[in-house]
């Protein structure tokens, strides 16, 4: 554990203690429960997989915000993915769309509880390596960038 991470864990423990003392154990439990729900309900754990042309992964929910997104970007280990190498489809719009076709006039629509699959073309390292994937979405109604980042091991045998 790095010094920075150790300090962060200590700070977290101190904050948790403060919340418990000042606002009660129920509060601490409820806040932790919400954080865990969000963590577990967006990225489908284990869905990062190698495909014939690159990698794929799935989200069970939109990250924090629903609605129409006029821009979709992806970074893998910090490197931007070209928009014509990124495709997405949802349970309600099952045809693959390339990110380069997404715009304010033709947005990608994401709804709560609706699964979204992403496929990325390209060579992203060893088939069993770990990747940090960062998804960035721009809403057409509320500008600030919504982002979601996870790190996972690439499994073999994803959908083509």
């Amino acid at each position, binding site marked *: 554990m790095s010094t920075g*991470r150790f300090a962060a864990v200590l700070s977290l423990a101190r*904050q948790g203690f403060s919340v418990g003392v000042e606002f*009660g154990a129920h509060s601490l439990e409820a806040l932790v429960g*919400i954080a865990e729900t969000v*963590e577990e309900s967006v990225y489908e754990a284990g869905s990062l997989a190698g495909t014939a042309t690159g990698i794929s992964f799935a989200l069970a929910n939109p990250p924090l915000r629903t609605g129409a997104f006029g821009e979709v970007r992806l970074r893998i280990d910090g490197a931007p993915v070209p928009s014509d190498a990124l495709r997405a489809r949802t349970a309600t719009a099952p045809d693959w769309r390339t990110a380069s076709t997404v715009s304010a006039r033709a947005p990608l629509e994401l709804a709560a*509880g609706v699964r979204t699959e992403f496929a990325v073309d390209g060579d992203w390292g060893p088939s069993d390596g770990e990747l940090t994937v960062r998804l960035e979405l721009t809403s057409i109604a*509320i*500008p600030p960038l919504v982002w979601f980042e996870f790190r996972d091991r690439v499994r073999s045998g994803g959908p083509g």
Partner: protein
Amino acid sequence: MTAGPAGPARYGPPPVLLTTLSSAALLDGRGDLELAREARGAPGEWGGVYGQLVRLTGPWRLSLVVDGSSRSLPETLVEAGGGSDRWQTRHRWGRLEVAETVVATEEPPGAVRRLRCSLTDGPALTLTLRSRFVPFLLPVLVEGIRPARYRADARPGELRVRQRGYGLSFRSSVAPSRLYANGVAWVGNSREGPVEEFASDHEVVLTPEAPVEVTFLISGGLERSIPDTASSELATGDPIEVADRAERARVAWEARTPIVRFPGAPELERAYALARSALRRLYSAPGDGLVGLVAGYPWYAAIWCRDLAWMLPAVLWLGDFDWAERSIDSVFRFQARSELPLLGGEPGELPMQIAPGPLFLYGTSDTTLYYPELVLRLARHAGRASVPGQWRDALARIAGWGRARADAETGLLRNGGEAETMEIAAGPVARIRYGIDAPDTTIWDSTDRRDHAIDVQVLWWGALRATAELLEGRPGPPDPAGLRALAEQVAGSVTSRYAWPQEGYLYDSLRAGAPVAQLRPNALRAVSAGLLAPETARSVVRRAARDDLTTPWGVRTLSSADPSFDPGTYHDGQVWPIATAWAADAALAAGERELGLAYLTSIARQLAAQAPHANECFRGDREEPFDSCFVLGFSVAPFLTILFERLWGLEVDGRGPRLAVRPAFPESLPRASIDGLRVGTGSARLRYRSGRLSVDWSGGAPLRLETAGGTTWVGPGESAEVDVAAGGSAAPPHP
């Protein structure tokens, strides 16, 4: 104002919102609890049952199954109607008739559906009612996520579903013959895992002579609040009685509020009644001892403390002092006492949101600043000589919080950076990271108005003055004189550093010492606060009335001439009724009476067109709700407050008692009246006609009546008539 109303606004059929203090049911009125609404630019489904500010379900649908054929309730709809307490529909399918009543229930928090099924003629038949609902079980403050996994237990008389401390209970008066999970028959007992839908079949045999009633109830919220016993009998027993009780409570509440009349402006009078009714529907006592008002529906169905702060002045003018006091107390309970960067909290800061759990989150620059003035308002309206000691301690902490964010040279408060703080705090420890890159969280929280947004400075100035008054005589820091001096410094900085002579307006913010030349309605708050010289105030009001900022359907969040203007963007171009209310308030404060009335009339027209709801916002290029909650406290409460404070020009102080009346009625509004205005423990009746004011007073002590011309004393049970321009005698009567 550039033009009058743009003709009748076109809205779709209004959604149906049934509420209690602890629950809500959202539907489209066709029989099922489903409600498709545009949200954030895309279709979304918001129908279902809400309890304790937790969305219990997504859509909840019933279908009729006879001999293998089925029809949904909406497919068989014949007629529909109702109000805020119940919704009733009639359905027909061949010789089968169904009358449904939907009611939100307070205890247990949820919604009940009663179906009376009958046959017109012919032989008996077996009807299967199939119930299908999507479980949700997450507080509404978490937008856009439906949990992935649930635990379900089927036991006699109940299906219970749980998700991390939240739960729902599904009951019916006719036991299910079959259960389904994800469309597959389910034997019952317990299951755990992903669930898209629960369904159940309920069979009844009908004959023309024997109609059958079937009742369904979904209730819940916090799992620990759901009783183990079948205590839902009352709600399932007679939903009509439940609705009648809710209606009686609502009518009784309205009867205690002032009766406001404008004989020459029926649209204002009707808008007052509509706004008052909409505000009452937002009242919330969701559990865990919390009291407040929900910000709006459907996606802001939580207690947002900034929104609450905009609603409470109206609640006070409506005379509900107790609700205002309990609401403020609920917010103060969650004041941060130490650094909580993961929640965005700094010592002294008040929460952005509170919900049962209890759940709370900080991270705004402005929410905290509203509350000192709210406490002062409560003291004045209710006639409290002092505020509770724990509130005074909370106010002292608020002053400390603000001072820590204030610039030493200018006194100006720094806004922004909260989301970044939370991200930094969470980064090193989180396995999964997520966020919204909102660098700033003022009332327009989706745009960047750092470092010193003008309206935040007005709030800071008001908070300092209110805190100084409330802490007078309290031992220990902060020193009220120091707070007043700081308020003066802030006022000086506002007048000297925000002036924008080229526009005759105020800059929107200062960033790194340089003015931010964006034209937004937020500058109007400085006019309302009285911080500007009269001529400057009028200039600001007139500039705001030009058609780049003011449209026939209200005021934009940003001038259309600004390079970053986008008519579809929440805080960079959309029209917000609260911004229109600011414009009305400022115009009346600056003496632009006809202009102020025009803004109020514009809001009144919209309220009538949307009744019983009040949209959050509209596109900036046409009168079309976009990314808009269909009812929002922001859109009704400021309108109510302005009627009392600006149009009537009322100031109350029940501690005297004292009533100041400085009306701003334009010539086009020569008559007005208020019955039942609460001032402390007393009540006043006001009649205004062409400059003459009569006041009847029912309080226990003489009322000091102040008008522009002087002071008049009105004894208990007595009346007085004064010229509001000339005033009366200043001699107080003997008690």
